[in-house]
């Protein structure tokens, strides 16, 4: 690994890319470029785009396989762009790429870095890479304290909880748990309804008692509830008042761990939590990066800083090639949508007048100056919405068709069993399906991300055990993995752990696994009971 400064050609290109980005008014953090060889690149990806990582067999396994594939020619080692955003951002260039490709990677990185700075989920933070490197050092120290065997056991247990990270879920820690440390960065302040002011009246205990609508029983219950909550808070230091989807986040803060174990949890959580941001904003993010990459590259070609515009066009069209909706290409979809949105803003079509216009001819010929800068409006979108809203607001049936999201290769259609009634057009190799349900199907991805939704709903179940809840989506969990996963969570929590999945309750505690049939509890019921400070589930 060497800094880009060591390569005069690339260093010059870097300066030109940053110059044009600044000229175009991009808001950028400090970006540091490094050049890596192919194996370093492969290793970096296995370390989740951080230069170091603690020892673990999983990375070793993936790397051994990858090395074998690269060396035997089964896998290409050319990676398009790899960047760890934050301030400073670290971007990595593959030394096997041509100068033109390196320039396009740098231009692409500019887009990602700006997106990270501006986005609504506030992805960018100070010294992220440095912080993770610090955590790696802490884990390494912890490894010596724990001893090899315990370290590996704990690490492997944590691997089981990696898909239980959800820092941006509406059921994240801040929305589900109250403790005495107050982490309210993401908490939405509820809008309080204005209540009519009570009229002042002279104090009279007798009158108050007569006028008060609360019965003695209700009064007692209210007091009792308050007392319970206070007791729970003082006993455990926290109180779960809503289902919590960020289970690893919970374990990181509240599991009874040693400092060495805590450092592993910290590393695991911090290095993996950016994935949640990526899946929620991938289309906007990649589209934004492609949009600015193209603009900057055209400038570079114009001033002859790089050569090979035809080659670039080939690469660009390859990266931005359309794919069907179920395997959408975020580069293509994002880039095409941002261009479409720019056009909408330019023609003044993002307003109520246009939407309420019923005359089709007028609508088709609509072109009104609004005085708004389209780029400024696009930047505002980056800072206010995620992919879900992006698609919901701007993806239309016409665009589904235009972007070929409803076009499927015949062989693939046969494999996934597309219903013949859904086919509206047939070509040599392709079929086109009805675009109407496509958008809804794409939006549904954002409710589950093709993963089971698991929540923590009780922290005092079966003798201080955790109770997890699998929100029913008509799909069963892989049954033979429930026991080892519960066992691993139990290893971290050091107490019993149970899981409700549909009409079954699985429990693991004291090395005993049990499974029993229960009456299914709907998620809404769980929410309702928790809101009333009641136990969400009784055996």
């Amino acid at each position, binding site marked *: *690994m060497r800094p880009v400064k060591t390569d005069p050609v690339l260093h010059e290109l870097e300066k030109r890319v940053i110059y044009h980005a600044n000229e175009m008014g991009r808001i950028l953090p400090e970006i540091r470029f490094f050049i890596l060889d192919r*194996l370093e690149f492969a290793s970096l990806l296995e370390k989740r785009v951080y230069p170091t990582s603690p020892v673990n*067999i999983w990375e*070793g396994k993936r790397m051994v396989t990858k090395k074998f594939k690269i060396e035997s020619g089964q896998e290409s080692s050319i990676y398009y762009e790899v960047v760890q955003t934050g301030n400073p951002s670290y971007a990595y260039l593959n030394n096997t790429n041509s100068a033109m490709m390196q320039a396009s990677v740098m231009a692409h990185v500019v887009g990602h870095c700006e997106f990270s700075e501006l986005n609504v989920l506030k992805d960018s933070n100070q010294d992220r890479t440095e912080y993770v490197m610090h955590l790696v050092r802490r884990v390494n120290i912890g490894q010596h304290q724990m001893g090899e065997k315990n370290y590996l056991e704990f690490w492997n247990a944590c691997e089981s909880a990696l898909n239980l990270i959800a820092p941006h879920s509406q059921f994240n820690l801040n929305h589900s748990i109250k403790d005495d440390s107050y982490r309210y960065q993401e908490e939405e302040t509820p809008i309080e309804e204005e209540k009519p002011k009570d009229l002042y009246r002279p104090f009279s205990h007798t009158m108050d008692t007569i006028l008060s609508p609360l019965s003695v029983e209700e009064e007692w219950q209210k007091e009792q509830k308050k007392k319970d909550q206070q007791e729970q808070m003082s006993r455990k230091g926290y109180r779960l008042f809503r289902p919590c989807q960020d289970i690893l986040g919970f374990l990181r803060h509240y599991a009874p761990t040693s400092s060495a174990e805590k450092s592993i949890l910290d590393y695991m959580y911090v290095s993996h939590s950016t994935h949640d941001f990526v899946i929620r904003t991938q289309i906007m993010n990649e589209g934004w990066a492609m949009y600015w990459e193209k603009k900057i590259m055209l400038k570079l070609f114009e001033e002859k800083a790089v050569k090979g515009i035809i080659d670039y066009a080939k690469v660009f069209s390859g990266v931005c090639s359309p794919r069907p909706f179920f395997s959408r290409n975020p580069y293509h979809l994002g880039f095409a949508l941002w261009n479409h949105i720019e056009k909408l803003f330019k023609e003044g079509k993002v307003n109520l007048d246009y939407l309420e216009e019923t005359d089709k001819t007028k609508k088709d010929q609509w072109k009104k100056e609004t005085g708004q800068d389209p780029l400024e409006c696009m930047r505002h979108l980056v800072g206010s919405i995620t992919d879900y809203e992006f698609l919901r607001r701007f993806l239309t049936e016409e665009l589904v068709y235009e972007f070929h999201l409803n076009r499927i290769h015949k062989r693939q259609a046969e494999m996934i069993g597309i219903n013949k009634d859904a086919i509206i057009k047939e070509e040599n190799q392709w079929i086109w399906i009805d675009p109407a349900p496509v958008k809804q199907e794409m939006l549904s991805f954002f409710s589950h991300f093709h993963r089971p939704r*698991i929540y923590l709903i009780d922290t005092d179940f079966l003798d201080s055990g955790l109770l997890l809840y699998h929100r029913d989506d008509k799909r069963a969990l892989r049954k*033979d993995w429930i026991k080892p996963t519960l066992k691993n969570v139990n290893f971290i929590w050091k107490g019993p752990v149970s899981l409700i999945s549909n009409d079954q309750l699985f429990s693991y505690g004291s090395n005993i696994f049990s499974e029993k049939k229960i009456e299914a509890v709907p998620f809404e019921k769980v929410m309702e009971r928790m809101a009333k400070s009641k136990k969400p589930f009784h055996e």
Partner: protein
Amino acid sequence: MQEDKIDSNESEGAFNDFIDDKLNDIVEDVLNDGDLDVLGDRGSDIIIEIDDIVPPTFTYGGEGEGQGGGNKGPGSDEGKLRFNVSFNRFMDLIAEKLSLPNLIKEGKGKIKEISYEFKTFGPTGVILDKKRTFKRALRTSIGTGRYAPSKNKFDVDFMRRDRRFKVPERVENPKYRAVVFYMGDISYSTHGKRLETEKRMVNFIKNWLDYNYGPNNVDHRFFVHDVKAYEVLESEFYQVGNIGGTRASIVFDLIYQIAFGEYDISSTNFYAFYFGDGEVFGSDSKDIIKILEESICPVFNRVGIVEIYPSQWSKLIFDLGNNFLNDSIVRLAKYTIKTDTIPVIKKLFAPVTQKA
């Protein structure tokens, strides 16, 4: 950021250790079951297959019951991990597990086995090392100013003195020679699982001696007998004849003749292994004892006599027991069930002890 090189060496090492543990388990299983078929062809790499390891998580999937591990590298899906393990590495592990000693090699150890490895680089030679040559040429061109990107000069001159060639280095290893005589009874009473067992034992012995002496330094020769004795190819060693009565002494006599007639006694290590049902007739046992004591024992490193699935009429080991019960050269063993494989091997190759 101070990292000079990004790599996963430590994690790869941890994974290798994990696989080593698995390999040890496999060797343990192989030895416990006595199933030595995993050794495959002579001297070839061993392919080890283990269940793939995946951390278990809450994920969608079927209802099928499978193996999900606990905390130690848990979970396995349908996939398999396959590894090539070198023959020598595998035999190292087996030797370690069985506590087998390295065989005592006698003879002209001063004779060296010579090979050549490309380890050094020199200014003359046949195979040009392009990378090194280019590096030197580039350095020279920078020095002479022919390559100066700042002045828009990009020429690299290749001068004769910059050329670097791969130079073979002589590697010498002591060379010992060994010959192994495998003797088998092919009378019709030796059939079915007896033959299978013979095959398994012979396979292990071949691999063990190859491992100790080097595969090119061992002659493996196969002899069979019923009422006559003759040399056969290995493939014919496991074919059963249809003659009833047998005489084993003639095959011992034959290998002794060959050992003396075809090999230099002073520089060769001799091994002989006899496999049969132990059903001998008349004075056969006495003749064998005479040949062993007078001819074979003075020059052979080791002689193993194994009764495979002995019957009530088997008496070869019984007869030989009086003379060779705790002998350092002649080892007697009975193979009655499959799990006897390892004890029999241990007995055949156990270190030389003083005669009781």
